[in-house]
């Protein structure tokens, strides 16, 4: 039998803030609860039928009391609202230097890919005291990536990216759950989050067979799906060149201009006719249904890796290799 634990482990930068908020909520509630229960019990005893307590001078006008407690509760509630809202905005504002880790949910497992290409299932290794941002998506139904020890959770929806960030503060192993009902083995869709010292984490990273990086895999897919036939440097088809594209504005056929971000790349693969770059014929076929979510991530990563290239020099591996390592 489990122990009589009252609080989950406190292991992220959000967790301590959340526990303070929890304490404030409990304090406010306890105050109201004791007030209501106390008065109720007091009245029930004092004014029970048959008691001789004085019942004279009953309150005639009630509106003053009513107004007073309406305003008092409203102000207390507003205070709690702003506190929670402030934290919520924080939970949704990842720091710039957060490391991105991709998470794809599918019935009934979490597939996790580190930026260096290391892959794991149902376990997430992260270094302590480093901000981490998870980019979540799902291959089938809605899942939810929940880490109670970090006090965070976020639905992973099919067809779009959601994000979630935290800074682990305590080395250890913590529970990971799927919190949105997703079918038969919903209760078994989870595992653990392992928080390690940075040096241990680096060792762990190195010991993993990283496989090709996301971008390198993306480059392979770029060829195997025939993308390079039109978008490649040697192609004769009049198709937009992808080198140096990412992050830049793209003028569209209908006069609008969009930034070539993750969404744009993703949509251009799945729904190529929706935002046609100005000056190009709308000839690209849709790849919707042919490329899975994890492959899409790789393609996007590849196109991103071409961001600071100029046409004619497209070797993802070399590009990636020459990039600087993350600050230790």
């Amino acid at each position, binding site marked *: 039998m*489990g122990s009589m634990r009252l609080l989950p482990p406190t292991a992220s930068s959000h967790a301590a803030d959340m526990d303070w908020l929890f304490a404030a909520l409990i304090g406010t509630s306890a105050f109201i609860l004791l007030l209501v229960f106390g*008065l109720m019990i007091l009245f029930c005893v004092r*004014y029970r039928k048959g008691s001789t307590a004085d019942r004279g001078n009953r309150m005639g006008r009630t509106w003053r009391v009513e107004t007073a407690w309406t305003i008092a509760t409203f102000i207390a509630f507003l205070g709690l*609202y702003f506190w929670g809202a402030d934290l919520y905005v924080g939970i949704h504002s990842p720091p710039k230097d957060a490391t991105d880790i991709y998470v794809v949910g599918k019935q009934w497992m979490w597939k996790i890919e580190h930026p260096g290409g290391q892959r794991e299932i149902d376990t997430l290794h992260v270094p302590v005291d480093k901000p981490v941002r998870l980019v979540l998506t799902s291959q089938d139904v809605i899942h939810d990536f929940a880490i109670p020890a970090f006090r965070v959770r976020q639905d992973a929806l*099919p067809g779009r990216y959601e994000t979630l960030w935290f800074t682990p503060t305590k080395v250890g192993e913590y529970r990971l759950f799927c919190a949105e009902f997703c079918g*038969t083995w919903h209760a*078994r869709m989870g595992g653990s989050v392992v928080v390690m010292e940075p040096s241990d984490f680096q060792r762990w990273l190195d010991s993993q067979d990283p496989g090709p990086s996301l971008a390198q895999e993306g480059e392979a897919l770029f060829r195997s799906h025939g993308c390079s036939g039109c978008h490649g440097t040697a192609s004769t088809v009049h198709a937009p060149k992808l080198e140096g594209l990412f992050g830049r504005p793209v003028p569209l056929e209908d006069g609008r201009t969009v930034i070539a971000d993750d969404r744009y790349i993703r949509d251009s693969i799945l729904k190529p006719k929706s935002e046609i770059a100005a000056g190009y014929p709308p000839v690209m076929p849709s790849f919707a249904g042919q490329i899975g979510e994890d492959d899409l991530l790789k393609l996007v990563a590849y196109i991103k890796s071409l961001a600071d290239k100029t046409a004619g020099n497209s070797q993802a591996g070399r590009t990636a290799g020459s990039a600087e390592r993350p600050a230790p």
Partner: protein
Amino acid sequence: MTIATVTGKPGEPVVATKNYLTEEGVTLRSWLLTKDHKRIAILYTLSITVFFFVGGAAATLIRLNLVTPAGIFTPDIYNRLFTLHGIIMVWFFLIPSIPNTMGNFLIPLMIGAKDLAFPRLNLLSWYLYVGAGLLALFAILVGGVDTGWTFYTPFSSMYSNGYVVLALAAVFAVGFSSILTGLNFIVTTHRLRAPGMTWYRLPVFVWSNYATSVIMVLATPVLAITLALVAVERLLRVGIFDPALGGDPLLFQHLFWFYSHPAVYIMILPGFGVISEIVPCFARKPLFGYKFVVWSSITIAVIGFFVWAHHMFVAGISLYAGLVFSLLSYVIAVPSAIKVFNWTATLHKGWISFDAPMLYALGFIGLFTIGGLTGLFVANLAFDVHVTDTYFVVAHFHYIMVGGMVSAYFGGLHYWWPKITGRLYPEWWARIAALLIFFGFNLTFFPQFILGYLGMERRYYAYPPEFQFWNILSSAGASILAVGYALPLFYLGWSLVRGKRAGANPWAATGLEWQTSSPPPTHNFDKTPTVTRPPYQYRPEAEPQDA
């Protein structure tokens, strides 16, 4: 309250010679084709009781399964159990519970009318309810629906096996039953009040059923069309809720919660009404701040529509939407708090007696206060990020729905039992049941708050071993609760045969329903009463006749 004509002299027990139970005949046909609101209320009470125990049986099995971390049933059986529990309890017990039983019975009596405005629609509503209920049971038990009562897409539309379309059809149909009831209550309250029965002379029970009806009429159609869209998506594999088909699953959630959050108020507002009747009667004092209580009901009914996306704080809605919906959710907590303060203040300087209905009412106030206060927790944006979809939420809404609404249902049932059946129930048994329910309930659901904060997720047939301690406590409480809920079945049943005959007004209560005989005649009043005073004019010296 001054009444022009009542059956018998005031203060004297009226032996009903002519009453609705026998007047139209006692054949099955006379019951199944009745247009009398009181008989339809009885039909509803019987069928709702059946569904309550079906849903309760599922709950018992759920708690049984959760005694061990590995679970006892297979995940598929467990998933069907909580789906059965959710669908039956929400649509076939909670939503119709008080409105369709006591509301149906009492609204015409309380406003001095002979029947509801549209008796045929009322009967049709019952047939829809029963038909839909049987269909839902068939779909879940035979076809095995495992979507949960929320039917989230794309799981429900594309991935779930089982008779999901039939279950959707059942909920669609019961929605129309609910709409017809709401429509009938709104129209009746507006058009059939007795002379002198002004709006501010209406009992709070009528007001809160009116507020409930507004929600029923305006929210339910959105649920109906949403579920229809899911069903078509499932049948045709084309639709607007599955991203693989070009749709948006959040659109489903918006439409679903546009109904299902206000539906929470459908479930609790009538309970407020019942408590507002019981507390003044047993405190022998007018309700404190009548107008505030009335207008907080109406405010809740309207603002209840403004808060739905607080179910979606981690579902992928925008940051801005989260900020708006959380603020609105805090706003709606205020009128709920006002009600609790008013009931408590009603006790002040009263002459309080602790008959069974009052015990249920006091239990309601306590449990609803805890449920409402934990609502502040889950409405809090940041806190919700930690506890959404955990047992914290489960405990929160069970405190409102079961601790609150079911207590109110039982309280009202005991309070009006003499009026409905003409018999008194054994008081001590009723008090024991009320106490068992209160303690059993707290033992069942309080540990779930702790489980939720620890991170135990909803809809898990198995869980990590460190959660077992609290789960065992919860399951132990559930067994006490089950006994508490089963008890009234026996002693109320017994009272039908052996109970002492009740007079017209055993509690010496005010209100038109107590001015006619028990059980009332088919058309309620021999002559339409005239009302000259506000409600709840209690005087301490008027003692209950049969107490």
